[in-house]
């Protein structure tokens, strides 16, 4: 699982959570942290009654491309999530993030114009070993300020965009031009992938808890990237790899789940690995993952086949976060150490979380991205 | 007590400078009284004003108990008037909007030495006890001057300066007021310098000095 669903819930609201967590995207004018926890809980409880009106997530997933590259009205939350590990001409490493979230305020079909119930939110970031710059933006659906079309593929909000080249015979996501800009940074990346998208979980049905919460989830982890980063006054030509996650759901978290740690690894061997641990207050973490062979063939990993061990904690944004991990997948002989390129890769957005590039060292080498949510 | 040395004072007038005092020297011992006599314009009131710090001398030296008066600034002279000397004017100069009791206590309060017992004694001795709630405009001249004397003595000054204290009163009243003034000054142990043009009144004081043409002249014939 990529973007932290949990991050969409204001931290203060988590404690008095009603039985079913209702994820609700809020707007930036709302100062969440000022909100009394109880009042917020009631508000969410009220919305919770509508949950059954959203479309359920059921197996099998039956993904169809390019249709499923586009939005899925009727589901409560959906995202297009790209992370890139990049290298400059001097060998300096960088990370880049481009994320677009779709969240309707009410269930039901999409409507045009101001009557659209959809709200869009996007995050972008550039990370180097020394700096981490990020930006966020919001848009109303229905008026053309933000949106996604499946074919030709186009996801955009304001002047940020992720556009498919529409190469004949290739998947709509196979060639992407990506642009975003914020205070002090911008980037333009061209990403190209050969294998088709890879379904996560059981053919795209990704379970999130022992009690059955799930999402539809597929990835394109095989992009090769060239492009340009602008970081302050510097313009840096870069090359590297990128990973795109697509996920949508209506009710993805179980009661008691507090946050998670999510890894996307690009191994030097050419294999790709997705791993996540959903941390719970009451039970041991729920572990899941997928081993993706260099040709794109996925192997789902069962909870017992994964071990994630925090090694070093760093103090970031008044929290303690593990920024160095031991990662073990014995079935595929993986035992390596992941370390954050920049431990201060904190996304201080309306819904804040940690998201940044990692380096693998030890048993296997490679790079990847780590996302951590729900730390207090 | 009071020491006056070579005091000179000149006033500018339309007809040119007028030298009122031309080098006056005088001594007054503690607990004694001195009458300063002289005809109108002889400068006797001016000398009294200088001793009281109401005006500044052009040259010369005045000291009270060894402390110089000449050379003090306005605030210093105000403090002198408030705390060291008591002045009794010919025109009484009571505060019309305050009643007798408050007028009596006024200077002592200014000096920060209000003493209700002493004020009561003074009121009794001056015959003012039944008049304490009246206002100055409701009093006769003699009564007003008795209030002024009480006001000057209430602060227990070391030196009383009186400028024709009976000048506005008829003879009988004036004599009575003077009796009171002399008796109370003697009781309080203060020194008294009194300006008068009357030889008859001057004779009742311990000593007298005569001002003539701006100088202390020879002792006139009694």
């Amino acid at each position, binding site marked *: 699982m990529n973007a932290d669903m949990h991050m969409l819930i*204001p931290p203060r609201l988590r404690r008095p959570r009603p039985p079913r967590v209702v994820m609700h995207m809020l707007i*930036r*004018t709302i100062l969440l942290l000022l909100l009394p926890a109880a009042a917020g809980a009631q508000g969410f409880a009220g919305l919770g009654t509508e949950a059954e009106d959203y479309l359920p997530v059921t197996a099998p997933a039956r993904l169809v491309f390019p249709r499923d590259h586009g939005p899925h009205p009727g589901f409560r939350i959906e995202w297009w999530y790209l992370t890139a590990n990049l290298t400059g001409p001097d060998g300096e490493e960088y990370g880049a993030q481009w994320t677009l979230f779709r969240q309707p305020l009410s269930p039901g079909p999409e409507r045009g114009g*101001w009557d659209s119930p959809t709200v869009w939110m996007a995050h972008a970031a550039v990370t180097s070993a020394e700096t981490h710059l990020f930006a966020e933006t919001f848009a109303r659906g229905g008026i053309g300020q933000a949106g996604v079309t499946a074919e030709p593929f186009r996801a955009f909000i304001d002047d940020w965009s992720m556009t498919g080249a529409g190469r004949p015979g290739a998947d709509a996501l196979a060639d992407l031009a990506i642009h975003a800009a914020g205070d002090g940074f911008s980037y333009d990346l061209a990403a190209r992938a050969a294998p088709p998208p890879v379904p996560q979980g059981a053919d795209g049905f990704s379970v999130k808890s022992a009690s059955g919460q799930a999402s539809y989830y597929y990835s394109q982890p095989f992009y090769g990237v060239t492009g340009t980063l602008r970081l302050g006054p510097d313009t840096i030509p870069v090359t590297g790899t990128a990973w795109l996650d697509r996920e949508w759901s209506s009710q993805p978290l179980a009661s008691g789940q507090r946050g998670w740690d999510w890894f996307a690894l690009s191994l030097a061997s050419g294999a790709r690995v997705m791993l996540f641990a959903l941390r719970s207050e009451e039970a041991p973490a729920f572990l899941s993952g997928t081993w993706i062979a260099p040709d794109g063939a996925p192997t789902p990993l069962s909870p017992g086949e994964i071990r994630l061990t925090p090694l070093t904690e760093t103090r970031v944004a008044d929290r303690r976060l593990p920024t160095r991990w031991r990662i073990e997948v014995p079935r595929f002989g993986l035992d390596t150490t992941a370390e954050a390129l920049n431990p201060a890769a904190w996304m201080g957005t309306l819904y804040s979380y940690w998201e940044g590039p990692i380096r693998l060292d030890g048993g296997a080498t490679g790079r990847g991205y780590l996302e951590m949510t729900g730390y207090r | 007590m009071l020491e006056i040395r070579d005091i000179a004072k000149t006033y500018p007038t339309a007809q040119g400078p007028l030298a009122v005092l031309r080098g006056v020297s005088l001594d007054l011992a503690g607990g004694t009284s001195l009458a300063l006599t002289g005809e109108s314009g002889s400068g006797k009131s001016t000398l009294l*004003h200088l001793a009281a710090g*109401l005006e500044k001398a052009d040259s010369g030296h005045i000291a009270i108990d060894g402390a110089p008066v000449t050379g003090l600034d306005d605030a210093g002279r105000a403090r002198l008037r408030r705390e060291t000397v008591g002045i009794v004017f010919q025109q009484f100069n009571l505060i019309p909007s305050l009643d007798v009791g408050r007028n009596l206590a006024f200077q002592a*309060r*200014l000096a920060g030495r209000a003493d209700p017992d002493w004020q009561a004694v003074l009121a009794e001795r001056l015959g003012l006890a039944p008049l304490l709630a009246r206002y100055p405009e409701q009093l006769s001249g003699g009564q007003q001057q008795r209030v002024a004397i009480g006001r000057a003595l209430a602060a227990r000054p070391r030196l009383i300066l009186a400028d024709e204290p009976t000048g506005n009163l008829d003879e009988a009243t004036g004599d009575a007021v003077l009796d009171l003034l002399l008796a109370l000054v003697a009781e309080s142990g203060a020194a008294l310098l009194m300006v008068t043009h009357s030889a008859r009144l001057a004779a009742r004081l311990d000593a007298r000095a005569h001002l003539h043409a701006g100088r202390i002249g020879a002792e006139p014939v009694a």
Partner: protein
Amino acid sequence: MTAALAQALASYWRRHPLELATLLVGLMVATALWSGVQALNAEARRSYAEAAGLVSGGARIVAADGQRLPLSDYVALRRAGLRVSPVLEGEWRAGDVDLHLVGVEPMTLPRGAAPIGEEAAALPAFVLPPGRAFAAPATIARLAGRPGLPELVASGQVPEGTLLLDIGRAAGLLGLPDRVSYLLAPAGTGVPPAFADRLTVAEGPADDLARLTDSFHLNLTAFGFLSFLVGLIIVYAAIGLAFERRRPMLRTLRALGVPARGLALALLAEILALALLGGAAGMAGGYLMAAALLPDVAASLNGLYGAHVPGRLALDPAWWLAGLGIATFGALAAAGDSLWRAFHLGPLAAARPEAWLGALRRRLVWQAGAAVLLCALALALLLLGGSLLAGFALMGALLLGAALLLPGLLALVLAALGRRAKGPVAHWLFADGRQRLGGLSLALMALLLALGVNVGVGTMVSSFRATFLGWLDQRLGAEIYLSAPDGAAAEVIGAALATTPGVTAALPIGAARSRFAGAPLEIYAFTDDPLYREGWPLLAALDRPWDRVAAGDAVMVNEQMARRAGLAPGDALAIPTATGAWETRVAGVYSDYGNPEAQVLAPVAQVRARWPELELRRLAVRADPASVPALLADLRGREGVDVTDRAGLRASAERVFEKTFAVTLALNTLTLIVAGIALLTGLLTLAEQRLGQLAPLWALGLTRRRLAAIELGQAVALAGLTALAALPLGLAVAWVLTEVINPRAFGWRLPLLLFPLDWARLFLFALATGALAALWPALRLARAAPADLIRRFSDER
């Protein structure tokens, strides 16, 4: 020492309560009138700020043609990377309640830009139909039971008559799904070149209303200031008198050992305490006055500018502080002279007090010199100044100069009369009158100012009324004016009227909006007809102006626009439109009283070519007078049609006019009353001394009754002479108002008409004021006991 000193100073006021009352009354009226006007201004300005600032922050991007801009432009700007947020405003009617809708877009709205709440869970209810709107509690109460409304939530931050809601919901109610009124942008945002032909950055956040109403408030402020000065004259006189009378006591205090600095500080503390006391009472009075006048002010502002000011007064602490501050400042200014003299007061009295005549003469010469300087300044301001502020400065210099000249003038007149007088009493009377000028001149100056301003303002208002009503009769040429819900409905009605017997013509009227020279501009689209050609009063025009306008070669502009932009017939003119500038020229200038905005008059076809969406919702119907009642009845039966006949329109215009000047006239009267109080208190405080001055005359054989009559006659004569002097001053004030202030403040010039009957009334008022003010002192004199007179007589020696 402090306590004794305080007691001595305070005892004076306890023994002289009348003087204390005078001083406090002076401070009170000065503070009350000033702070009352300030409260009115503050209230009005706050409602403008609320209306303009409901959505606030940063810059605003607007369409160059003054219309709403397409939603697609907003999206395009966002897609170009500009962090703008759309706002849609419009008028909407819920049943019979007119509402102003302000629609904001919560996703992009800068934080804190509009009070839409911060409760997280409230977002879906705000955005999703039917939506949720924030409104003032009073608005919600008025809307009870009206259908088709969003859910209403009370908010103290939304002005009355306004709904603050989601832009999508506002768009739905207004039927404008693809329009935006303006875009909020971060400060410093520029319009990208691709949009520069049709979008522009507005200077400030919609301060058009504040700018329009500035002159109105400046007028109010000028009146408040005048009243303040008149009040201070009372204070100055009272403090000066108290100082003079306490001078012996202050000397005694000095002799008893109070230092000069201590005495001055004590007097300063005394005046500050009195200022706070009088100021606080004045603030209460000012509040009551403002509360009483506010409905009229609100009505004027609504009638003149369409500004909505709620009829309630909400005052903040800053107002109280400012009011007490101005009271303190005024008291200190009035007491400065006395304080300075107290500081330099020696313990011994000067050998020879100066003769009053020499002092008076020197003062009169000094004042006359200052008056001449002020008149020269006024002349310079008239010839060189061009701004409204210079106009008011001219007025101030004129008034102050005249006031300073008055005592000298009166002294000359009294001296001349005295030379002709026969008999010793008459001689004494005039000589005494001159002497009294010293004490009364300030009060008489106050009376002169009040009377002069009264004549001036009265003349201006009466001139305006006569001109305005005449103009209205000309301008309202059609028998019936109606307004339909939309252009299509108006067309249907027009077609029906065309075949109705008795109807001569049904002329469509529309209005488009643009901006000109940084201010809003209305383009009035008319249908060529003798109604305009014959009735529309033109101030200046080219040859055959209406033919040129009808042919589309030129337009008419109103006087306000011509004056502001310096336009004359024949001048070229470029009006911004959505498709670029409309290059035309000025055919004529028409007077347009009561309209604060610039206006252009052009044929419907010309306007429609530039504003294709122009709707002709209004009709001017010319009909046979006999058929008007039946027509009115028929038209009023149609749903959504607003019908007014000529008489009704004229009456409502007249009502607006009267309301507009109601406040001016009320303040005018108050100023006059304050001047009366000044004269009364002046005479009262002098009455004590007066008894002493008159005692010798009584001793010489004049009866008390006769003395009282002399006293009364003298006051009436002084007031009458002052009133005579006030007449030319008043005419000068009226001239400055109509020729200088009005054109600069409102943009139109008025002919100056004279109303001698009003002058006669004011003259009588002045005499009555003098008599009334002298009545009590005269009565006291008439009833004074002989013993009292004897005592005064002897005391004065």
